[in-house]
C-alpha cells in the first residue's frame, strides 16, 4: 500500500519504522532536511522536503494516488489542514494526530469533511492505559481485547509463588480458573510456551483470560492487590490532564507541576484535583506533598531520564504502584532492569493503533485485525481477529487444524463469553479470537495463521 506520512517527529519516525517493516511504500514529508536524511538511509522510503500542509508538497508526494495519508506533525491545526488538502487531492483515507482536548469534541462533527478515518491522540490513549493499570495495579502491563471483556496482563513470578516449577498444563487444576499463559519472558529470552513448559522463579508471565478471572487469579497467587485511593502525578502534561479527568471520583489526584501558568490552567479545568506548583523532581517536595501516603505515583515529565530516576526513587520509598512514562522505548530493557517495572509509552500505543488500522485496510476480506497490542517489550504481538462467516476452518476442532509455528490461539470470544480454548473447541462465524505470535512474523488476517 502507498502511504504518505507528514511530520517526521517522534510518532512519525516510529510509524515509518513499523510500516516500512510491514512492506508498505512510504513517502515521508517534513521540513527538516536532517531528519529526512536519517529516514532515507535507515528505512526504505522516499522523502520530500517541504511543508506537508501545502498543495505543492502533497502533489509532489502524489498524495492523490496514495491509499492513506497520516498527518503527525506537532500542530493539530496543520494536521487538519493536511487532511483537507489530501482529501481534495482524492486520497480515500486520512489519519490525523489531534491532541488538543478542545478540538477532540468537534472532530466527530468534522470527520466527513476531513475524510478522517481515525484520529490519534497519543496522550489520551496513554492516559487510558495508565488508568487501566491504576484500576488493576497487580499487573505490570495490561491490554484489553474484545471491548474490555478479555485482557492480557503481565505478572512477575516471585520465588515464593506456588507456580514456580510447575508445568503449564497443571495451571488449570491448581487454580481452577480459566486462564492461559500465552508468553513468558525469562531474562533476555521470550517464549510462546506449550503445555509442558515449566515455569521458573522471576519469570515474567503474560496471562490471558476474561477480566473477571484475572482478579481471581491474582488473588489465588497471593499477589497483594490493593485498591488505589490516592495518586500523585509528577508533571502536569496533557496525559496528566486526561488521567485526572478519568480518575475523577475514583481516587484522590494530586498533580505536581513546575510551571505556574500551567498550574493555573490545570487548576481551572480540574476543580476536583489538587494542583501543586512545585518542582516535582525534588525528593523533599515529593515527601512533603505526601509521597508516603500515596498509593500510586505516575511520572509524566517530558524527560525520560527524570521519569526513570523519579520512579526508582518512589519505588525505593515504598510506593505501592509506580508507573513511568517513557518516550524512547529503545532503552526499556535497561530501565526494567533498574527496578522500573511498569512503563507506558504514548507513541508506541498510537503506532500500534495505526499499524492495526493499516493491516485491516490491507485485508479487505473478513478476518481482519480488530485489536493489536505489542507485549513483552514489543517482541510479541497479541492480535484480535474477527472470525469470518465463511471459512474452511470454521467448526473444526482446533486440534485438527494446522497452525503456523509460533502461533498460539489464546482466547476465543463467543458471543461475549471468553473461552480459553482446548483441543476440542472450534472457531465459529462471528466470534473474535485472540492470537499471540512473535513480532518477527506479521499477520494481517486470520487466514494467514494457518498452514495453507
Amino acid at each position: 500500500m502507498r502511504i504518505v506520512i507528514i511530520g517526521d517527529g517522534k510518532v512519525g519516525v516510529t510509524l515509518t519504522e513499523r510500516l516500512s517493516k510491514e512492506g508498505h511504500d512510504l513517502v515521508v514529508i517534513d521540513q527538516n532536511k536532517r531528519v529526512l536524511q536519517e529516514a532515507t538511509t535507515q528505512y526504505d522510503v522516499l522523502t520530500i522536503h517541504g511543508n506537508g500542509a501545502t498543495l505543492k508538497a502533497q502533489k509532489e508526494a502524489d498524495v492523490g494516488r496514495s491509499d492513506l495519508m497520516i498527518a503527525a506533525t506537532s500542530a493539530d491545526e496543520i494536521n487538519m489542514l493536511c487532511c483537507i488538502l489530501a482529501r481534495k487531492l482524492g486520497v480515500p483515507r486520512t489519519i490525523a494526530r489531534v491532541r488538543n482536548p478542545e478540538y477532540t469534541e468537534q472532530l466527530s462533527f468534522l470527520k466527513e469533511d476531513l475524510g478522517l478515518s481515525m484520529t490519534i491522540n497519543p496522550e489520551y490513549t496513554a492516559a487510558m492505559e495508565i488508568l487501566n493499570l491504576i484500576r488493576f495495579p497487580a499487573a505490570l502491563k495490561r491490554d484489553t481485547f474484545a471491548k474490555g471483556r478479555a485482557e492480557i496482563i503481565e505478572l512477575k513470578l516471585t520465588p515464593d509463588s506456588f507456580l514456580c516449577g510447575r508445568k503449564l498444563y497443571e495451571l488449570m487444576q491448581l487454580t481452577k480458573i480459566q486462564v492461559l499463559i500465552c508468553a513468558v519472558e525469562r531474562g533476555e529470552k521470550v517464549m510462546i510456551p506449550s503445555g509442558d513448559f515449566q515455569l521458573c522463579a522471576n519469570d515474567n508471565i503474560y496471562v490471558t483470560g476474561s477480566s473477571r478471572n484475572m482478579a481471581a487469579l491474582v488473588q489465588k497467587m497471593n499477589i497483594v492487590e490493593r485498591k488505589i485511593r490516592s495518586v500523585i502525578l509528577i508533571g502536569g502534561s496533557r496525559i496528566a490532564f486526561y488521567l485526572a479527568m478519568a480518575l475523577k471520583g475514583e481516587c484522590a489526584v494530586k498533580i505536581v507541576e513546575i510551571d505556574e501558568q500551567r498550574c493555573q490552567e490545570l487548576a481551572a479545568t480540574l476543580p476536583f484535583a489538587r494542583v501543586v506548583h512545585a518542582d516535582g523532581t525534588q525528593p523533599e517536595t515529593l515527601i512533603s506533598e505526601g509521597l508516603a501516603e500515596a498509593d500510586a505515583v505516575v511520572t509524566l515529565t517530558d524527560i525520560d531520564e527524570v521519569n526513570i530516576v523519579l520512579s526508582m526513587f518512589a519505588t525505593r520509598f515504598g510506593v505501592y504502584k509506580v508507573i513511568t512514562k517513557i518516550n524512547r522505548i529503545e532503552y526499556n530493557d535497561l530501565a526494567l532492569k533498574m527496578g522500573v517495572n511498569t512503563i507506558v509509552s504514548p507513541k508506541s500505543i498510537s503506532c500500534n493503533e495505526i499499524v492495526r488500522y493499516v493491516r485491516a485496510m490491507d485485508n479487505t476480506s473478513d478476518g481482519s485485525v480488530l485489536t493489536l497490542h505489542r507485549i513483552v517489550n514489543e517482541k510479541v504481538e497479541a492480535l484480535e481477529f474477527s472470525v469470518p462467516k465463511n471459512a474452511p476452518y470454521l467448526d473444526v476442532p482446533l486440534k485438527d487444524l494446522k497452525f503456523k509455528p509460533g502461533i498460539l490461539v489464546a482466547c476465543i470470544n463467543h458471543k461475549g463469553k471468553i473461552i480459553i480454548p482446548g483441543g476440542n473447541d472450534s472457531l465459529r462465524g462471528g466470534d473474535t479470537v485472540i492470537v499471540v505470535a512473535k513480532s518477527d512474523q506479521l499477520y494481517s488476517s486470520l487466514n494467514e495463521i494457518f498452514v495453507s
Partner: protein
Amino acid sequence: MNYKIIANVIGRILCIEAVFLLPAAGISLYYGEYGLIGPIVISVLLMASAGVLLLLPKPGPTPYYAREGFVAVALTWLMISIFGALPFFFSGAIPNFLDCVFETISGFTTTGASILTDVEALPYGLLYWRSFTHWLGGMGVLVFVLAVHPMSKGSGQSVYLLRAESPGPEVSKLVPKTHASAKILYGMYIGLSVLQFIFLAIGGMPWFDNLTTVFGTAGTGGFAIRGDSMGGYSAYIQVVVTVFMTLFGVNFSVYYLLVMGKIKQALRNEELWLYLFIQAAATVLIAWNVRSFFPSMGQTVQQAAFQVSSIMTTTGFATTDFNLWPEFSKWIILILMFIGASAGSTGGGMKVSRVLLMAKAARRERKRAVNPREINVVRMDGKLVEDDTMRGIWMYLSYYLFIMLASMVVVSTNQFGVEVTFSAVVSCLNNIGPGFGVCGPAGSFASFNAVSKVVLCFDMLLGRLEIIPFLMLIAPAAWNKRGLHRRYWR
C-alpha cells in the same frame, strides 16, 4: 567495516556476470567458433565459483552504511573487470592480460576506448561480450542486482548502493522502495533498448550488428564491431543511432515522470533543456565550420549531429574521423567531452547539471561580491539547492582536476604530444572513448605503455563511479573500525 556484506554484494554480482557471459558461448556455437567455447565456459565457471565462494559467509543483520556502500561498489567494479577479462585472455584473442582488463574496464565503464587495432578480427562470441559489458555497465551492475533481488527488507541501507553507482550530484529514488526504483530504471532501460532494436531492424541492419549497436548506444559505450565504427551503415541507421544516443543521455527520471503522465513536471527539468540546447548549438556551429567537407547541407548537419551527440553523451561512436576537422570544431568537441550527459542517465562526463549548478553558484558569488548584504540562493528546477550539494560538486571538481593532471603527467611518458596526452586522459576520465591523434576515432590505445594503460584504467573507473567510491578505497579512515581505531585514543 562490514566485510561480509561487501563479500556478499561482490559474490552476487560475479554470479550474475557468469550468467550473462553464458550467451557468448551460444553465439560462438552459432557462428561455428568452436575453439572459443572452451575458454568462455572456463571463464563462466571461474566467475561462478568465485561468486559462490564469496556468498558463503552469511552477512547477518549487521548494519552497513555509506562507506560500505562505496567500498562495495568500487571493489565490485574492479572484480567484474578482472573476471570479465578472462574470456579475452583464455581465448588468446588479446594476448596481454593488461590489455584484456583495459578492454573490459573500457566496456563496463561505457568508455569504448579500445586497444584493438583490428576489431573485425575478433570472434563473434567475444564481440557480443565486449558490447554487452556496455549495456550492463551503463545503468549499473549494482542497480541490476537491486532490481532482481531486494537487498534488505524495510531498511533503507540498500540506498547507499544505488547512490554510489548512479551518476549525478543528487541521487534520489523514483518510488519509495529501492528495489522498485531499480526495477523501474531497468524497465525503462530495457524498453528504450528494445525500441532502438526495432528501429534499427526496420533499417535492415543485420541482427548481430543491431544487437551490439544497441548495447553500445544504450550504455552510451561506443564499442562497434566494424573498423569504421558506424561509418559503413546507411544514413537512416546513423540518424536512428544519433537520436537514441541523445535519448540515453537524458535523465531517466524525466522518462519516469512522462510515463506517469506528469508531463509538466517532466518538462520543468532545467538540465534537460540545457542539454538539448548545447547539443543543438554545437551541431549548428560544427556544421557551419565543416560545410566544405560534405557534398550536401543535409549530410553536413547529419554528420555534425552524430559526432556531437556521440561525444556529448560520451558514447564514442563515429561516422567520420573528426581528427581531420578544423581546429574550431575539435575544440567544441573537447568542451563537449568535459560537459558530458545528464545526471541520472547512462552517460558519463561531468554532467550538465553539475556544470549548470557551478555556473549558478559562480553567479551567486559574483552578486555577493557586488553587494555583500544581499542574500542569494541557488535554485534548480524551482527548488533550493542545499549548500551540501554544492560542496559535493566543488569537491568533485577539485578531485577531478587533480586526477586529470596527475594522469596526464603519467601518460606524457609516451611522447605522443600534448594533444594526444590531453585528449586520451580526458576521453577516459569522461568515459568517451576516442580522443585526438593516435587514439582518435580511427586509431586505438594499443600503442600506450603499460603504466599509462593502468592509469587510464583507473581514470575510466573513477570517471564512471564519479571518484568518491574509489577515494574510499584508499582513505585510511574508511578501513579502520568506524573511526574508533586505537590511534584516535591517544
